[in-house]
């Protein structure tokens, strides 16, 4: 089975976020990591390969420096990497990103394309659906369980009460949520072998994508401003002997801790 895991490189959650004059996130190489949500997609890809055989490709659109994070996916267990990079891709919105990823997926060919449910920087969460739309192929979204059998992909999607079951013939796209698995650590051997695994680079020309439809040129979405979230947490202080314990108990009951 050909499994392609789409991964984004995002600034680490703890990194200080700065924006450029045209309101684009300033990306620093030293803060870059694999989008934490995509680690679950990668793990699911590896588990499906362990069950069904085949190959796992880590596909990433990003700057040339993203190779380092593709390498990390190879250390964790992906067989090879593909980087889609082109100066014209800078500033792509979700639709532009989806066009480029869809073209890469088409070029690579796949039975299963896996995505994290969103990216930890923009938190748009629409790229998997947009890629499916461009490709005209089914998306099984927000999977908390995935089974492949008899040429069909079947997922469970957590709902308010219980879960929904959805299935589609493969090739299919699946986005996963964090409860689907526990991502493994890379191994020392994986790190050592990752240097020998191939990483191919595709430009827009390689993919036959019209440069005016992606990047800043093609973006129909534009960030106009940003402001920090007020993260100051206001604690509530119960003190004194006069009923403080009762109020704490009441609070814990309210929070469903007790």
């Amino acid at each position: 089975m050909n499994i392609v895991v789409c991964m984004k490189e995002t600034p680490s959650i703890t990194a200080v976020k700065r924006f450029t004059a045209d309101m684009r996130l300033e990306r620093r190489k030293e803060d870059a990591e694999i989008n934490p949500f995509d680690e679950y997609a990668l793990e699911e890809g590896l588990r499906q390969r362990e069950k069904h055989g085949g190959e796992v490709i880590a596909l990433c659109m990003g700057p040339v420096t993203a190779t380092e994070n593709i390498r990390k996916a190879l250390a964790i267990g992906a067989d090879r990497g593909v980087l889609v990079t082109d100066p014209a891709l800078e500033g792509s919105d979700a639709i532009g990103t989806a066009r480029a990823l869809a073209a890469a997926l088409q070029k690579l060919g796949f039975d299963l394309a896996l995505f994290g449910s969103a990216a930890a920087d923009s938190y748009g969460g629409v790229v998997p659906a947009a890629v499916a739309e461009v490709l005209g192929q089914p998306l099984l979204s927000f999977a908390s369980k995935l089974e492949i059998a008899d040429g069909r992909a079947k997922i469970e999607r957590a709902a308010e009460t219980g879960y929904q079951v959805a299935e589609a013939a493969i090739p299919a796209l699946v986005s996963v949520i964090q409860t689907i698995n526990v991502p493994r650590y890379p191994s020392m051997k994986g790190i050592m072998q990752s240097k020998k695994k191939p990483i191919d680079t595709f430009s827009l020309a390689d993919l036959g994508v019209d440069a005016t439809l992606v990047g800043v040129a093609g973006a129909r979405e534009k960030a106009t401003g940003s402001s920090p979230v007020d993260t100051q947490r206001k604690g509530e202080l119960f003190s004194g002997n006069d009923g403080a314990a009762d109020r704490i108990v009441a609070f814990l009951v309210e929070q469903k801790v007790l």
Partner: protein
Amino acid sequence: MFFRLDDEQREIQELARKFAQHEIAPHADEWDEEHHFPREVLQPMAELGLAGLLVPDQYGGLALPRLTGALIYEQLAQADMATAVWLSVHNMVAGLIAKFGDEAQRERWLPRLVSGAALGAFSLSEAHAGSDATAIRATARREGDEYVLNGSKYWVTNAGEADLYAVMLRTDAEARGRGISTFIVERDTAGFSIGKLERKMGLRSSPTGELIFENCRVPAANRLSAEGDGLKIALSSLDGGRVNIGSIAVGVAQAALDVAVRYAGERVAFGKPIGAFEGIQFMLADMAMKTQAARLLVYEAAWKMDNGEPSITAAAMAKCFATDAAMAVTTDAVQALGGAGYVRDWPVERYMRDAKVGQIFEGANQIQRIVIARGLLGEVASQ
């Protein structure tokens, strides 16, 4: 001269850090308190490759350079010195079998050790033979295709928990240093039992104890290398062992420094954080200097071993300086935290208890100084 790790070293260091901080550090206090040997982390560590650091690829190991190994032990010891120590012993045993075992012995034991299915232990010391290893009295007497083992061994790390014991025993009463041979003894061998387990100041989650052999019969095929090679085998692991213990000491020192720095920023006295007082600043600065100097000595010794340069003096310096530094830094960390440092709500008292053994085992620091002095003085030092 480059003071920069390469990509692979950085990634391996980062992986060791992540694993140590997530899977070991949160439990270290409890393991210490309960004297719990965390067998449950051996398997996950083996999956990362940590149980075969010195074993060649064909047996499932990594055959990592010493420097990379030092980076790993440093990270593990930052989380828990005891875990780093018992793992380093395990790796030493696997390394000895890889280096001195014949093909059949490697096939037989290495996959079990590397996969974490079996834990290794190393046994040289006796009641009357510590720093002077030639004084070994416990015997192995040849009888046909077997050896009959008698006597007891002391201070064995992983005693009782380990499945395979590399034991140095006397096969020739006449020849002192050359009358010693190395045997691999399986835990369930008849006539082999575990004696007293020590009640220690530190390293409490790692058992240390006595091995007792009473007419214990092992096949001659369990002897590593030729008869009389035992001391050579034991001594071959000295430099590596010293570098490992040095790197572990650096890890403990760094952990203590980190806690002290954090505390100095948070604890307020006389209206300001105590880190605003020079008395604390000077202490932290000295701790940082000692830790970093130790780290550089350890890395240099490891680098020399990796590059085939003479490493005896460098390894002795690294072990001695780093473990002395760890003792000083952890003691200062307790001082910087004051009353908080003396109680178990903070980990620095554990670091201090653990650090002490570094100055004693793997060649006491007095022995290291003799080794260094002999390097300086040659024959003169031996008169």
